């Protein structure tokens, strides 16, 4: 039993942290807000160059051949600096699903797409559907900027050209996140694969999305905690640093506790996903519930500690806070995942939890719990 990164893994995360420190400042994020797509195609190329986009692409296809676990370490660092690029969508969920389609289904285009992901030549967006019955269209993050849109239902998976299926793009409160309406009906595409074999692949999509997003939320929480601690150490009122007031100390200590106790759960979920453990779905939900809760508490507390300064968009804090709010409901919010955990624990799913083991409709079922 080992739970935690080894030295190599720590080094990998540390190297990526240095990259983010240099290449993803708050000003970079503001530039991304102002841009057409919410993130930088140049930095995307750089992410490919340092290998991050191919972390979980097999070496044979130009990737690093690592697992969801290393991906989670990377995602935490990305969260800490609020990296705007669709890393989770493409490098974690997209690459993971393409890898499954290659290994388990033998879908011919998969290797090509995996190569393009690793080289930074393709953005992949992934959405999930409750059922394969065509819906009036669901909103999928980053699908508007993607080269490939994958949709996973319990009994079918589609690979779509965004040009055929995206009907509109909406902006979110976080300026780096754009949501495209994907209309399966209008694309008239046939599924890549369908039938009972699809279920476990689709469940893994949700689990991977939840876990990688949870990792990013832990990083966002840690980042906001750092900002608040730093501000509380500088700002003076009543002749003292406000961080010397017990009320401020205790609020920040509570944030530290929630963030620290979310991290091992993310590690566990990522490792369970990587090794296909029987508890992988429950572990992912545990991680996402804890990480969302931690990041929401961090955002709420950091805003309060910053006072009016934090209420301005001149202060960088809101760039992190809005990302946290968005990600807290992405890939299932706190309520969704708590429900899923409970459903996994009762032998015969009790009535209040029926139907909860299904992958969710990416958007409508994404319920958020802000503080």
């Amino acid at each position, binding site marked *: 039993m080992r739970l935690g990164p080894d030295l190599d893994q720590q080094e990998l995360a540390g190297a990526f942290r240095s990259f983010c420190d240099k290449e993803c400042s708050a000003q970079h994020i503001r530039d991304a807000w102002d841009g057409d797509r919410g993130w930088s195609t140049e930095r995307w190329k750089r992410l490919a160059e340092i290998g991050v986009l191919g972390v979980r692409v097999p070496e044979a296809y130009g990737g690093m051949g690592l697992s969801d676990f290393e991906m989670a370490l990377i995602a935490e660092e990305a969260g800490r600096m609020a990296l705007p690029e669709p890393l989770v969508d493409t490098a974690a969920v997209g690459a993971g699903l393409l890898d499954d389609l290659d290994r388990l289904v033998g879908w011919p285009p998969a290797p090509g797409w995996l190569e393009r992901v690793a080289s930074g030549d393709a953005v992949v967006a992934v959405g999930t559907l409750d059922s394969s019955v065509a819906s009036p269209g669901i*909103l999928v993050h980053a699908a508007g900027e993607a080269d490939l849109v994958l949709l996973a239902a319990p009994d079918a998976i589609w690979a779509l050209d965004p040009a055929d299926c995206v009907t509109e793009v*909406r*902006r*979110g*409160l*976080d300026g780096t*996140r754009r*949501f495209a309406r994907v209309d399966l009906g209008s694309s008239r595409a046939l599924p890549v694969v369908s039938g009972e074999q699809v279920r476990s692949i689709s469940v893994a999509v949700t689990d991977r999305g939840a876990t990688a997003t949870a990792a990013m939320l832990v990083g966002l929480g840690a980042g906001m905690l750092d900002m608040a601690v730093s501000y509380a150490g500088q700002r*003076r*009122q*009543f002749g003292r640093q*406000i961080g010397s*007031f017990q*009320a*401020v100390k205790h609020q920040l200590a509570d944030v530290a506790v929630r963030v620290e106790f979310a991290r091992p759960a993310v590690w566990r979920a990522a490792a369970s996903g990587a090794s296909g453990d029987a508890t992988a779905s429950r572990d992912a939900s545990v991680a996402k519930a804890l990480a969302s809760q931690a990041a929401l508490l961090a955002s709420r507390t950091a*805003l*309060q500690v910053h*006072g*009016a300064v934090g*209420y*301005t*968009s*001149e202060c960088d804090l*809101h760039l992190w806070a*809005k990302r946290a*709010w*968005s990600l807290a*409901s*992405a890939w299932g*919010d706190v*309520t969704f995942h708590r*429900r899923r955990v409970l459903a996994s624990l009762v032998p015969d799913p009790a*009535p*209040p*939890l*029926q139907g909860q083991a299904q992958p969710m409709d990416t*958007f*409508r*079922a*994404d*319920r*958020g*719990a*802000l*503080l």
Partner: protein
Amino acid sequence: MDLSFTPEQEAFRAEARAWLEANVPSVSRGTGPLPSLDTPEGFEAHRAWERLMFENRWSVVSWPQRYGGRGLGVMEWLVFEEEYWRSGAPLRVGQNGIFLLAPTLLEFGTPEQRERFLPPMASAEEVWCQGWSEPDAGSDLAGIRSRADRRGSDGWVLNGQKTWCSRGAYADWLFGLFRSDPDTERHRGLTYFLVPMDAPGVTVRPIAQLDGEPGFAEVFFDDVEVPVDQVLGEPGQGWEVAMATAGSERGLNLRSPARYTVAANRLVELWSEVASRDRDLAAMHADAVASAWIDAEAYRLATYAAATRLASGGKAGSEASMNKIFWSETDLAIHATALALLGAEAELLSEEGRPGDWMDGYLFSLAGPIYAGTNEIQRNVVAERVLGLPR
């Protein structure tokens, strides 16, 4: 104990409701909703709405008639507020003047000052912003460093900087605290000034809030000359005057219960819609929804109880700090619960790039525990002044 309203109060309610239903800017009549009051066009649209209210004597029902009011009591004011919020009428662009400065003017102002300032305030011909906080004096308001120096017998000269002035980007006048005796510290030697924003030497820098709009501003004073009749109260008495305003800000005046009960009722409607789609999801949120609604109701009832005490000659005191904690947390709970029900949908912007109503309300509610003295300060006040715990 009498939980009913008098026939006069019921008639007043009916009149207010009818007027508001006929006049509130609305989608159905093609007159609303108004653009955000933190945009230039929105500000002017809100000003026009205030003027219409004033012309029909709805702007300041509890003020004396001579200043444009109806001379009604606090119960009638609460009734009006219930109808106002129920009707979905716009936020009040003149609120800082009407609800914060006006009670202070009525208590400390000279007859001439009241004549001069109250009617244009009520009509929003002159919109006021508050100039209290400074970069180093936020929660610690007594740390004010902006200066007022006496110039001759008939004037003062102001220098310094104020910040977080809500509506400051577009306001016509500012009421603010300045240190008039340089040898004093903390609460002493402050003076309360009324300053036109177009006075020479005043510079405004708008600040974008969480929603991206310039909801507040920094205001710089560079040798701004102010005549002596624009001092409110006595020179050096500024803290005492300001505390009267702060009581209004935290207490009953600024935050009438109706805004929360209306929001809480909308929350229940939202929950009911969710319940029709997903019974179990609704049940999982039922506790939070009910709790938020009950707290809004508690605030409403506590306000009636406070109004009853006031009507019997009682005086509002440190309970204002309890109010502030309670309404700000209730507001947050209502909006956070709504966002939880909406899920990811909550974060989508409109085509004009504006947050949806619930998100907008949530962003606004996040300021509640911060402005008018952070809730941390209010808890200190409750602990020390209400409970008598040692400092």
